[in-house]
């Protein structure tokens, strides 16, 4: 475990953007590389109880940001936060976790492995002294640091009373950009994010939008090479892509295949990284 260090307001290593917010923390305790906190960063936050869609979006958004060398900031909570960190660490990206407790405490405890992954190249940050326990009132306070570190904040998925909306409010007060990932309007867990869009947040129609927003040139990057698919695979993949969230039964009925065939093709497409299954439904992964 890295040594816990601290940096005071006004010192050289103090995260640059935090200097400009209304009530910057006087001292920050951290583990890892503090210079990362002054790099261009984007916060990716959302609901703890995330839907498969939310997890997918968080993961791949972070993947995209990492690809262009943008650091990802989040809160290391369950759900969207965890997937945001994972998307970065799995793809050689750098990521900052801002905690609502002392940096020596792993909360939630089940994220211990993730915390270690983050520390390999990233940063764990908190305004609380080591040993201070995670209590509910500390998290909204913590959220101002998440948004304060970043040029922009992306809300991936949020219910109506989600804590991620507090982060969005902080970002707005600090004059930072707010982005939101749109969700289906018949899904309760997307109300929060969709409402932000209504209130003026920038919707991310595709992940590349955020790269354009940041003013990074995408032309130099190579596009995904096409993956070879068989005829049956292509048919099923196209159907799922056209219809979004579907069940195996839907695929069977509409492609005229037996469940046995569909199930085995879905597995193969899952292995190729094109599909994802969860809670009885099939999603597009790429």
């Amino acid at each position, binding site marked *: 475990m890295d040594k816990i260090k601290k940096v005071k307001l006004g010192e050289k290593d103090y995260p640059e953007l935090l200097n400009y917010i209304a009530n910057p923390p006087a001292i920050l305790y951290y583990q890892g590389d503090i210079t990362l906190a002054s790099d261009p960063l984007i916060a990716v936050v959302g609901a703890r*109880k995330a839907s498969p869609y939310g997890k997918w979006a968080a993961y791949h958004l972070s993947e995209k940001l990492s690809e262009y060398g943008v650091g990802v900031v989040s809160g290391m909570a369950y759900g969207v936060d965890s997937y945001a960190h994972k998307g970065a660490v799995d793809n050689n990206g750098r990521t900052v976790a801002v905690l609502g407790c002392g940096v020596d405490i792993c909360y939630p405890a089940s994220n211990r492995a993730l915390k270690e992954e983050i520390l390999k190249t990233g940063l764990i940050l908190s305004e609380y002294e080591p040993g201070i326990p995670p209590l509910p009132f500390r998290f909204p306070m913590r959220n101002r640091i998440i948004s304060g570190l970043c040029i922009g904040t992306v809300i991936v998925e949020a219910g109506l009373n989600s804590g991620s909306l507090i982060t969005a409010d902080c970002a707005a007060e600090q004059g930072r950009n707010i982005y939101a990932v749109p969700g289906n309007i018949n*899904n309760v867990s997307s109300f929060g994010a969709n409402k932000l869009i209504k209130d003026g947040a920038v919707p991310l129609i595709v992940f590349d939008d955020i790269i354009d927003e940041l003013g990074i040139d995408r032309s130099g990057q190579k596009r995904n090479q096409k993956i070879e698919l068989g005829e049956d695979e292509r048919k099923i993949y196209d159907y799922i892509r056209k219809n979004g969230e579907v069940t195996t*039964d*839907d695929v069977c*009925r509409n492609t005229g295949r037996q*469940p*046995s*065939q569909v199930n*085995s093709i879905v597995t193969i497409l899952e292995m190729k990284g094109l599909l994802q299954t969860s809670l*009885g439904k099939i999603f597009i992964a790429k």
Partner: protein
Amino acid sequence: MYSQVKSGSLYGLNSEQVIVEADLSPGLPAFNLVGLPDVSVRESKERIRAAMINSGFPFPSKRITINLAPAGTKKEGTHFDLPIALGVMAANGTVKKSVAASFAFLGELSLEGKLNRINGALPLSIGLRKNGIKKIILPAANAAEVSAVDDILIYPAESLGQIVSFLKGKEEITPYAKQLEQKWRKNPENMDFSDVAGQETVKRAMQIAAAASHNLLLIGPPGAGKTMMAKRMSGILPEMSYEEKLEVTKIYSVAGELTEEQPMILSRPFRAPHHTVSGPALVGGGASPKPGEVSLAHCGVLFLDELPEFSRYVLEMLRQPVEDEKVSISRIRGTVSFPSRFLLLASMNPCPCGYYGDATHECTCTQNQIRSYLSKVSGPLLDRIDMHIEILPVKYSELAGLGLDPDQDGFLAKPKTSDELRREVEQARAIQLERYHNEMIYYNSQLTTGLIKKYCTLDNETKKLLENAFQKLSFSARAHFKIIKLGRTIADMEGEERIRIHHIAEAIQYRSLDKMYRGI
């Protein structure tokens, strides 16, 4: 004045012969019963006295001593009424000793002198048959049940008076003739898989489970049809063999679950204990051990609806019966073992409120509640469940029997009936029986690691897929063998000798809980 007649006593599913000795001697009138009778046997004195007098026979006013030999084992059950009464009458000279000694007797008396139905008649008769007894007099209500035993003459009687007339040669009782089994076939609710609209994927999974007795867990929100489909499960299992029917009927006989309308169990049992069930009720128990739900589900389906609602202590008790296919209950008198080879079918919601992952209802559970709910079924019990699949509510168009989405080009497959599904299951079972005829196992779900190596070889391409799946979906080690076993079953359903890549690929889809645990 001494006499002896034969009867039997029951312990667990085993019975042994009991000689009922009766002795009448001069002295103050008394009725003593020795040979470790329990309360139900000791009370028989009062029933016998009233029944004899009300049937018009004299009750000897002598010192009556009854001994149930062997005197060292405990006896229980009301079926001793009739042999004791006959012993007294033989000693008294009402019937001839030699005639009474040529039969075995089982039956409970009413005060009026009528014979009442008894529990455990089938295993008792099987035990008597083993001791070389060929003629049994028992209550008419039990005759059909016992007729399953070959090579034995059953004399069904209605009353004590009738038996005495018969033994005196005044009246004829014709031995019970075996009835056509079909008459008792139980299909009260007429449940068929063709009633279930849509859900083709779940049906397929259930069929695979049936084909090799894989234990199955259904996960889905309320109203998805979990219970409806589970109830139809026993209908797609293959027909029971004669030995299986006899074994199951024995268990039901001991448990007192047979009726006159259903004296034999001919179709596979389906047991669905409520989640408040106690441990002994589930696995069996009691001072004199009685079979529990797991044994009553022997050869059939044990359905545990709302699995995480069962108490953890009760679920842990399931481990031995599922693993060993029998329950051993130890008591001071000895150890009783009841068979329990069943297909475990369980259902659960994805979270405590039931709507996690549902697009139309908001799930009100916290992440921690969902985790603790899922973790209730984790560990050793989950280790014994081969397949888990998610089940979602059907759409209206499917319910209405249209079978297609109105705004999409669809095709409509007529749902298969239970009979059609069962025929395919039977074919797959036949393949397995032939393959394993030297291995002391019946079907793929019983394969051990060693046998998997012997019978489930995978080609390189398939091995690569499996390896890939492990990394991508982060499956546990325990999932590895289960997927191969499932792949074996899927191949058998297609009549394929080799396990192909698409068999394994399909099997991977039936391990959804592994994926649920993967999510943070």
